[in-house]
Protein backbone atom coordinates (compact mmCIF):
# COMPACT_ATOMS: atom_id res chain seq x y z
CA UNK A 1 0.00 0.00 0.00
CA UNK A 2 3.03 2.31 0.46
CA UNK A 3 3.86 1.77 -3.24
CA UNK A 4 0.32 2.82 -4.24
CA UNK A 5 0.49 5.87 -2.01
CA UNK A 6 3.69 7.03 -3.67
CA UNK A 7 2.03 6.61 -7.08
CA UNK A 8 -0.90 8.73 -5.96
CA UNK A 9 1.38 11.41 -4.57
CA UNK A 10 3.18 11.77 -7.87
CA UNK A 11 -0.08 12.22 -9.76
CA UNK A 12 -1.87 14.66 -7.42
CA UNK A 13 0.29 16.29 -4.83
CA UNK A 14 -1.94 16.18 -1.72
CA UNK A 15 -3.20 19.56 -0.60
CA UNK A 16 -3.07 19.53 3.19
CA UNK A 17 -6.69 19.30 4.54
CA UNK A 18 -7.73 22.68 5.95
CA UNK A 19 -8.95 21.15 9.25
CA UNK A 20 -7.85 17.72 10.40
CA UNK A 21 -10.83 17.09 12.68
CA UNK A 22 -13.22 17.90 9.82
CA UNK A 23 -11.18 15.52 7.61
CA UNK A 24 -11.46 12.66 10.09
CA UNK A 25 -15.15 13.32 10.79
CA UNK A 26 -16.04 11.74 7.45
CA UNK A 27 -14.75 8.43 8.72
CA UNK A 28 -16.59 8.69 12.01
CA UNK A 29 -19.94 10.17 11.06
CA UNK A 30 -21.54 9.36 7.70
CA UNK A 31 -23.10 12.09 5.56
CA UNK A 32 -26.59 10.72 5.95
CA UNK A 33 -26.26 10.16 9.68
CA UNK A 34 -28.84 8.18 11.69
CA UNK A 35 -31.24 10.75 13.16
CA UNK A 36 -34.88 11.51 14.01
CA UNK A 37 -37.09 12.72 11.17
CA UNK A 38 -40.44 14.42 11.46
CA UNK A 39 -43.61 12.88 10.08
CA UNK A 40 -47.06 14.31 10.74
CA UNK A 41 -50.22 12.38 9.89
CA UNK A 42 -53.85 13.19 10.46
CA UNK A 43 -56.30 10.44 11.31
CA UNK A 44 -58.60 11.67 8.53
CA UNK A 45 -55.96 10.46 6.05
CA UNK A 46 -56.51 6.97 7.44
CA UNK A 47 -60.25 7.66 7.56
CA UNK A 48 -60.21 6.95 11.25
CA UNK A 49 -61.46 10.42 12.25
CA UNK A 50 -64.99 9.05 12.62
CA UNK A 51 -64.03 7.18 15.75
CA UNK A 52 -60.80 8.83 16.87
CA UNK A 53 -62.06 12.13 18.32
CA UNK A 54 -58.73 13.46 19.56
CA UNK A 55 -56.02 14.23 18.69
CA UNK A 56 -56.83 15.16 15.10
CA UNK A 57 -53.15 15.12 14.08
CA UNK A 58 -50.35 12.92 15.33
CA UNK A 59 -46.57 13.03 14.77
CA UNK A 60 -45.12 9.53 15.28
CA UNK A 61 -41.71 10.68 13.83
CA UNK A 62 -39.23 8.08 12.52
CA UNK A 63 -35.50 7.25 12.49
CA UNK A 64 -33.52 7.14 9.30
CA UNK A 65 -29.87 7.32 8.27
CA UNK A 66 -26.66 5.38 8.20
CA UNK A 67 -24.94 4.01 11.25
CA UNK A 68 -21.20 4.75 11.39
CA UNK A 69 -18.75 1.91 11.66
CA UNK A 70 -17.51 2.89 15.10
CA UNK A 71 -20.72 3.64 16.92
CA UNK A 72 -19.61 4.13 20.52
CA UNK A 73 -21.84 6.00 22.94
CA UNK A 74 -22.84 8.70 20.49
CA UNK A 75 -25.89 6.65 19.58
CA UNK A 76 -26.37 4.96 22.91
CA UNK A 77 -25.53 1.74 21.17
CA UNK A 78 -24.57 -1.33 23.13
CA UNK A 79 -21.28 -3.11 22.48
CA UNK A 80 -23.19 -5.68 20.47
CA UNK A 81 -23.73 -3.10 17.73
CA UNK A 82 -19.99 -2.77 17.17
CA UNK A 83 -19.61 -6.54 17.24
CA UNK A 84 -22.28 -6.82 14.55
CA UNK A 85 -20.39 -4.25 12.46
CA UNK A 86 -17.23 -6.32 12.76
CA UNK A 87 -19.07 -9.52 11.79
CA UNK A 88 -20.57 -7.75 8.75
CA UNK A 89 -17.20 -6.37 7.63
CA UNK A 90 -14.87 -9.21 8.51
CA UNK A 91 -16.75 -12.48 8.78
CA UNK A 92 -20.13 -12.69 7.04
CA UNK A 93 -21.66 -9.88 5.02
CA UNK A 94 -25.03 -11.60 5.02
CA UNK A 95 -25.31 -10.49 8.63
CA UNK A 96 -26.96 -7.02 8.30
CA UNK A 97 -25.26 -3.80 9.36
CA UNK A 98 -26.76 -2.18 12.48
CA UNK A 99 -29.94 -0.22 11.75
CA UNK A 100 -31.05 3.23 12.74
CA UNK A 101 -34.07 2.65 15.00
CA UNK A 102 -35.98 4.53 17.71
CA UNK A 103 -34.48 4.30 21.19
CA UNK A 104 -36.98 6.30 23.22
CA UNK A 105 -40.66 7.15 22.82
CA UNK A 106 -43.26 9.34 24.39
CA UNK A 107 -46.89 8.35 25.07
CA UNK A 108 -50.03 9.65 23.38
CA UNK A 109 -53.50 10.33 24.80
CA UNK A 110 -56.31 9.22 22.52
CA UNK A 111 -60.09 9.82 22.77
CA UNK A 112 -62.14 7.28 20.84
CA UNK A 113 -65.74 6.15 20.34
CA UNK A 114 -66.29 2.47 21.03
CA UNK A 115 -68.60 0.32 18.91
CA UNK A 116 -71.24 0.41 21.66
CA UNK A 117 -71.26 4.22 21.62
CA UNK A 118 -69.33 4.59 24.86
CA UNK A 119 -66.35 6.95 24.89
CA UNK A 120 -62.88 6.11 26.16
CA UNK A 121 -59.90 8.31 26.99
CA UNK A 122 -56.72 6.23 27.12
CA UNK A 123 -53.01 7.00 27.37
CA UNK A 124 -50.96 4.70 25.13
CA UNK A 125 -47.27 3.98 25.68
CA UNK A 126 -44.56 4.28 23.01
CA UNK A 127 -46.50 6.18 20.37
CA UNK A 128 -44.03 8.93 19.37
CA UNK A 129 -40.33 8.29 18.64
CA UNK A 130 -38.17 10.88 20.42
CA UNK A 131 -34.59 9.53 20.09
CA UNK A 132 -32.78 7.26 17.67
CA UNK A 133 -30.07 4.69 18.15
CA UNK A 134 -28.05 2.24 16.09
CA UNK A 135 -28.79 -1.38 16.93
Amino acid at each position, binding site marked *: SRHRREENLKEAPATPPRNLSEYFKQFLFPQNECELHSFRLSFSQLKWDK*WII*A*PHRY*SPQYCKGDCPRVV*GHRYGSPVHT*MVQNIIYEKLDSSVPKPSCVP*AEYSPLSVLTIEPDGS*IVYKEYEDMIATKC*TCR
Partner: protein
Amino acid sequence: RSRDRAASDKVSGLLVAPEVSELHPLLLLPKGVSRGYALLPPLLKVLSDQGRQSWESGAPRLRPDSRALRYMKRLYKMYATKEGIPKAHKSHLYNTVRLFTPCSECQHRHRDLSKGDLHSVDLLFNLDRVTALEHLLKSVLLYSFDTSVPTSSFTCTCHLSVKEHDFSSQVCPSVSHSVAFSLHFEVRKRKWVEIDVTSFLQPLIATNRRNIHMAVNFTCLMGNPQHNTKQDNLIDMALVPPSLLLYLNDTSEQAYHRWNSLRHRRKSPLRPKRRNSPFADVTGDKGRENTQGKRA
Protein backbone atom coordinates in the same frame (compact mmCIF):
# COMPACT_ATOMS: atom_id res chain seq x y z
CA ARG B 1 -43.16 -16.57 7.30
CA SER B 2 -43.02 -12.91 8.31
CA ARG B 3 -41.18 -11.90 5.12
CA ASP B 4 -44.02 -13.27 2.90
CA ARG B 5 -46.69 -11.72 5.13
CA ALA B 6 -45.70 -8.09 4.31
CA ALA B 7 -48.76 -5.80 4.20
CA SER B 8 -50.14 -5.34 0.65
CA ASP B 9 -49.34 -1.85 -0.68
CA LYS B 10 -52.58 -1.16 -2.51
CA VAL B 11 -55.38 -1.33 0.08
CA SER B 12 -58.97 -0.99 -1.11
CA GLY B 13 -62.44 -1.91 0.15
CA LEU B 14 -63.94 -1.21 3.52
CA LEU B 15 -61.91 -1.80 6.65
CA VAL B 16 -64.35 -2.87 9.25
CA ALA B 17 -62.84 -2.50 12.72
CA PRO B 18 -62.74 -6.20 13.34
CA GLU B 19 -63.96 -8.16 16.21
CA VAL B 20 -60.84 -9.82 17.53
CA SER B 21 -61.78 -13.27 16.22
CA GLU B 22 -61.48 -12.19 12.53
CA LEU B 23 -57.83 -11.32 12.88
CA HIS B 24 -54.94 -13.53 11.73
CA PRO B 25 -54.04 -15.76 14.74
CA LEU B 26 -50.47 -14.41 14.78
CA LEU B 27 -51.85 -10.90 15.29
CA LEU B 28 -54.14 -11.81 18.16
CA LEU B 29 -53.28 -10.27 21.50
CA PRO B 30 -53.56 -12.15 24.77
CA LYS B 31 -57.14 -13.00 25.68
CA GLY B 32 -59.11 -10.16 27.30
CA VAL B 33 -56.44 -7.61 26.40
CA SER B 34 -57.22 -6.45 22.93
CA ARG B 35 -60.97 -5.94 23.22
CA GLY B 36 -60.62 -2.67 25.06
CA TYR B 37 -57.94 -1.30 22.76
CA ALA B 38 -59.81 0.84 20.29
CA LEU B 39 -56.50 1.59 18.58
CA LEU B 40 -55.02 -1.84 18.16
CA PRO B 41 -57.48 -3.91 16.13
CA PRO B 42 -57.57 -1.42 13.20
CA LEU B 43 -53.75 -1.06 13.30
CA LEU B 44 -53.38 -4.82 13.13
CA LYS B 45 -56.08 -5.00 10.48
CA VAL B 46 -54.27 -2.56 8.17
CA LEU B 47 -51.01 -4.48 8.57
CA SER B 48 -52.47 -7.95 8.24
CA ASP B 49 -53.22 -9.93 5.07
CA GLN B 50 -56.87 -9.12 5.49
CA GLY B 51 -55.93 -5.46 5.06
CA ARG B 52 -57.19 -5.65 1.47
CA GLN B 53 -60.24 -3.65 2.55
CA SER B 54 -60.07 0.15 2.55
CA TRP B 55 -58.55 1.84 5.49
CA GLU B 56 -61.72 3.54 6.61
CA SER B 57 -62.68 1.84 9.81
CA GLY B 58 -66.40 1.99 9.19
CA ALA B 59 -67.43 -0.40 11.91
CA PRO B 60 -71.04 0.31 12.80
CA ARG B 61 -70.66 2.54 15.86
CA LEU B 62 -73.49 3.92 17.86
CA ARG B 63 -73.27 7.71 17.96
CA PRO B 64 -72.39 8.83 21.50
CA ASP B 65 -74.55 11.36 23.36
CA SER B 66 -73.45 14.86 22.31
CA ARG B 67 -73.35 16.09 25.90
CA ALA B 68 -71.17 13.19 26.90
CA LEU B 69 -68.90 13.86 23.94
CA ARG B 70 -68.56 17.51 24.96
CA TYR B 71 -67.64 16.46 28.48
CA MET B 72 -64.98 13.96 27.31
CA LYS B 73 -63.43 16.51 24.92
CA ARG B 74 -63.14 18.88 27.89
CA LEU B 75 -61.55 16.08 29.93
CA TYR B 76 -59.12 15.38 27.07
CA LYS B 77 -58.02 19.04 27.01
CA MET B 78 -57.43 18.91 30.77
CA TYR B 79 -55.32 15.75 30.59
CA ALA B 80 -53.38 16.12 27.32
CA THR B 81 -51.47 18.81 25.43
CA LYS B 82 -52.46 20.03 21.96
CA GLU B 83 -50.16 17.39 20.42
CA GLY B 84 -51.83 14.70 22.50
CA ILE B 85 -49.02 14.14 25.02
CA PRO B 86 -50.35 13.26 28.51
CA LYS B 87 -49.75 16.25 30.79
CA ALA B 88 -47.08 15.62 33.39
CA HIS B 89 -48.73 17.22 36.39
CA LYS B 90 -51.48 14.59 36.69
CA SER B 91 -51.16 13.19 40.19
CA HIS B 92 -53.54 10.24 39.99
CA LEU B 93 -52.84 6.77 38.71
CA TYR B 94 -55.54 6.28 36.14
CA ASN B 95 -54.56 6.18 32.50
CA THR B 96 -58.04 5.34 31.20
CA VAL B 97 -61.42 7.06 31.62
CA ARG B 98 -64.52 5.40 30.24
CA LEU B 99 -67.90 7.08 29.87
CA PHE B 100 -71.03 4.95 29.53
CA THR B 101 -74.47 6.31 28.81
CA PRO B 102 -77.39 4.22 30.06
CA CYS B 103 -79.12 2.11 27.47
CA SER B 104 -82.21 4.08 26.48
CA GLU B 105 -85.03 1.55 26.90
CA CYS B 106 -84.57 1.37 30.65
CA GLN B 107 -85.53 4.95 31.39
CA HIS B 108 -88.96 5.77 32.69
CA ARG B 109 -89.80 8.88 34.60
CA HIS B 110 -92.60 9.23 36.98
CA ARG B 111 -93.34 12.65 38.24
CA ASP B 112 -95.07 12.68 41.55
CA LEU B 113 -94.66 16.19 42.75
CA SER B 114 -96.50 15.61 46.01
CA LYS B 115 -93.86 13.19 47.20
CA GLY B 116 -91.11 15.31 45.67
CA ASP B 117 -90.24 12.28 43.67
CA LEU B 118 -89.34 14.41 40.74
CA HIS B 119 -86.86 12.45 38.92
CA SER B 120 -86.55 8.75 39.28
CA VAL B 121 -84.72 6.83 36.64
CA ASP B 122 -83.95 3.19 36.18
CA LEU B 123 -80.51 2.94 34.65
CA LEU B 124 -78.85 -0.02 32.99
CA PHE B 125 -75.18 0.34 32.14
CA ASN B 126 -73.45 -2.24 29.94
CA LEU B 127 -69.75 -2.41 30.90
CA ASP B 128 -68.66 -4.89 28.24
CA ARG B 129 -65.87 -2.63 26.95
CA VAL B 130 -64.00 -2.69 30.28
CA THR B 131 -61.13 -5.17 29.90
CA ALA B 132 -59.78 -7.54 32.52
CA LEU B 133 -56.58 -5.46 32.90
CA GLU B 134 -58.44 -2.22 33.59
CA HIS B 135 -58.79 -1.83 37.37
CA LEU B 136 -61.37 0.53 38.80
CA LEU B 137 -60.07 3.45 40.85
CA LYS B 138 -63.08 5.76 40.87
CA SER B 139 -66.64 5.80 39.52
CA VAL B 140 -68.81 8.88 39.10
CA LEU B 141 -72.39 9.54 38.09
CA LEU B 142 -72.27 12.52 35.78
CA TYR B 143 -75.32 14.75 35.68
CA SER B 144 -75.82 17.59 33.28
CA PHE B 145 -78.25 20.33 34.21
CA ASP B 146 -80.57 22.26 31.93
CA THR B 147 -81.96 24.52 34.57
CA SER B 148 -84.50 26.87 33.16
CA VAL B 149 -84.54 28.63 36.55
CA PRO B 150 -81.39 30.80 37.00
CA THR B 151 -80.50 30.11 40.59
CA SER B 152 -77.34 30.15 42.62
CA SER B 153 -77.53 26.97 44.66
CA PHE B 154 -79.31 23.68 44.93
CA THR B 155 -79.73 21.09 47.57
CA CYS B 156 -80.51 17.69 46.23
CA THR B 157 -81.23 14.49 47.98
CA CYS B 158 -80.34 11.50 46.00
CA HIS B 159 -81.45 7.98 46.64
CA LEU B 160 -79.40 5.42 44.82
CA SER B 161 -80.24 1.75 44.78
CA VAL B 162 -78.75 -1.09 42.82
CA LYS B 163 -81.13 -3.66 41.46
CA GLU B 164 -80.12 -7.28 41.43
CA HIS B 165 -81.73 -9.59 38.95
CA ASP B 166 -82.98 -12.24 41.29
CA PHE B 167 -83.37 -15.00 38.78
CA SER B 168 -85.64 -16.99 41.05
CA SER B 169 -88.32 -14.31 40.79
CA GLN B 170 -88.49 -13.14 37.21
CA VAL B 171 -91.07 -10.50 38.08
CA CYS B 172 -88.92 -7.73 39.36
CA PRO B 173 -85.32 -7.45 40.44
CA SER B 174 -84.75 -7.18 44.16
CA VAL B 175 -82.79 -4.25 45.53
CA SER B 176 -79.41 -5.47 46.69
CA HIS B 177 -78.13 -2.35 48.36
CA SER B 178 -78.96 1.29 48.37
CA VAL B 179 -77.65 4.54 49.72
CA ALA B 180 -79.18 7.95 50.23
CA PHE B 181 -77.21 11.15 50.43
CA SER B 182 -77.80 14.78 49.91
CA LEU B 183 -75.55 17.28 48.31
CA HIS B 184 -75.53 21.00 48.27
CA PHE B 185 -73.75 22.77 45.49
CA GLU B 186 -73.45 26.16 43.91
CA VAL B 187 -74.62 26.37 40.37
CA ARG B 188 -73.26 29.21 38.28
CA LYS B 189 -74.86 28.01 35.11
CA ARG B 190 -72.60 25.00 35.69
CA LYS B 191 -73.43 22.29 33.31
CA TRP B 192 -72.11 19.27 35.09
CA VAL B 193 -72.33 17.72 38.52
CA GLU B 194 -70.17 14.71 39.35
CA ILE B 195 -71.40 12.42 42.11
CA ASP B 196 -68.74 10.03 43.39
CA VAL B 197 -70.30 6.58 43.75
CA THR B 198 -67.05 4.63 43.96
CA SER B 199 -67.68 2.89 47.26
CA PHE B 200 -71.22 2.16 46.14
CA LEU B 201 -70.32 0.53 42.82
CA GLN B 202 -66.94 -0.95 43.76
CA PRO B 203 -68.37 -4.30 44.98
CA LEU B 204 -70.23 -4.77 41.70
CA ILE B 205 -67.50 -3.76 39.29
CA ALA B 206 -64.88 -5.64 41.28
CA THR B 207 -66.78 -8.85 40.57
CA ASN B 208 -66.50 -8.08 36.82
CA ARG B 209 -70.24 -7.47 36.60
CA ARG B 210 -70.99 -6.76 32.94
CA ASN B 211 -74.35 -5.05 33.52
CA ILE B 212 -75.21 -2.67 36.34
CA HIS B 213 -78.87 -1.93 36.94
CA MET B 214 -79.60 0.91 39.36
CA ALA B 215 -82.43 3.25 40.21
CA VAL B 216 -81.59 6.85 40.94
CA ASN B 217 -84.14 9.05 42.66
CA PHE B 218 -83.20 12.70 42.59
CA THR B 219 -85.09 15.49 44.28
CA CYS B 220 -83.67 18.98 44.17
CA LEU B 221 -84.73 22.04 46.13
CA MET B 222 -83.72 25.56 45.27
CA GLY B 223 -81.57 27.35 47.82
CA ASN B 224 -80.92 25.80 51.23
CA PRO B 225 -83.61 23.54 52.83
CA GLN B 226 -82.88 24.93 56.35
CA HIS B 227 -84.28 28.31 55.31
CA ASN B 228 -87.29 27.34 53.23
CA THR B 229 -89.37 24.18 53.04
CA LYS B 230 -92.08 25.44 50.67
CA GLN B 231 -93.01 22.77 48.16
CA ASP B 232 -92.91 25.20 45.25
CA ASN B 233 -89.14 25.40 45.68
CA LEU B 234 -88.92 22.07 43.95
CA ILE B 235 -87.08 22.71 40.75
CA ASP B 236 -88.24 21.34 37.54
CA MET B 237 -84.89 19.81 37.00
CA ALA B 238 -84.71 18.78 33.44
CA LEU B 239 -82.12 16.22 34.45
CA VAL B 240 -80.72 14.30 31.57
CA PRO B 241 -80.19 10.66 32.66
CA PRO B 242 -76.69 10.50 34.13
CA SER B 243 -73.71 8.94 32.44
CA LEU B 244 -71.37 6.65 34.33
CA LEU B 245 -67.70 7.61 34.37
CA LEU B 246 -65.14 4.93 35.29
CA TYR B 247 -61.59 6.04 36.12
CA LEU B 248 -59.41 2.98 35.52
CA ASN B 249 -55.79 1.93 35.82
CA ASP B 250 -54.87 -0.14 32.78
CA THR B 251 -51.93 -2.38 33.67
CA SER B 252 -51.34 -3.82 30.21
CA GLU B 253 -48.15 -3.15 28.24
CA GLN B 254 -49.79 -0.92 25.64
CA ALA B 255 -51.01 1.56 28.24
CA TYR B 256 -48.85 4.39 29.53
CA HIS B 257 -47.83 4.01 33.17
CA ARG B 258 -46.88 7.38 34.55
CA TRP B 259 -45.11 5.93 37.61
CA ASN B 260 -42.91 3.79 35.31
CA SER B 261 -41.74 6.77 33.29
CA LEU B 262 -40.01 8.15 36.40
CA ARG B 263 -38.19 4.88 37.05
CA HIS B 264 -37.52 4.49 33.29
CA ARG B 265 -35.69 7.83 33.09
CA ARG B 266 -33.23 6.61 35.68
CA LYS B 267 -32.13 3.61 33.59
CA SER B 268 -32.58 5.00 30.07
CA PRO B 269 -31.03 2.88 27.30
CA LEU B 270 -29.21 5.94 25.95
CA ARG B 271 -26.93 6.02 28.95
CA PRO B 272 -25.87 2.33 29.05
CA LYS B 273 -24.25 1.31 32.25
CA ARG B 274 -20.53 1.96 31.95
CA ARG B 275 -19.38 -1.65 31.39
CA ASN B 276 -15.78 -2.44 30.85
CA SER B 277 -16.21 -3.35 27.21
CA PRO B 278 -14.06 -6.40 26.51
CA PHE B 279 -13.43 -4.92 23.11
CA ALA B 280 -12.39 -1.48 24.33
CA ASP B 281 -8.91 -1.67 22.85
CA VAL B 282 -10.08 -3.28 19.58
CA THR B 283 -12.90 -0.84 18.80
CA GLY B 284 -10.93 2.17 19.89
CA ASP B 285 -13.78 3.08 22.22
CA LYS B 286 -11.49 3.52 25.19
CA GLY B 287 -11.97 6.68 27.20
CA ARG B 288 -13.37 8.83 24.34
CA GLU B 289 -16.69 8.63 26.05
CA ASN B 290 -16.59 12.15 27.49
CA THR B 291 -16.75 14.04 24.22
CA GLN B 292 -19.06 11.48 22.66
CA GLY B 293 -21.17 11.25 25.76
CA LYS B 294 -21.75 15.00 25.80
CA ARG B 295 -22.73 15.02 22.15
CA ALA B 296 -25.07 12.04 22.66
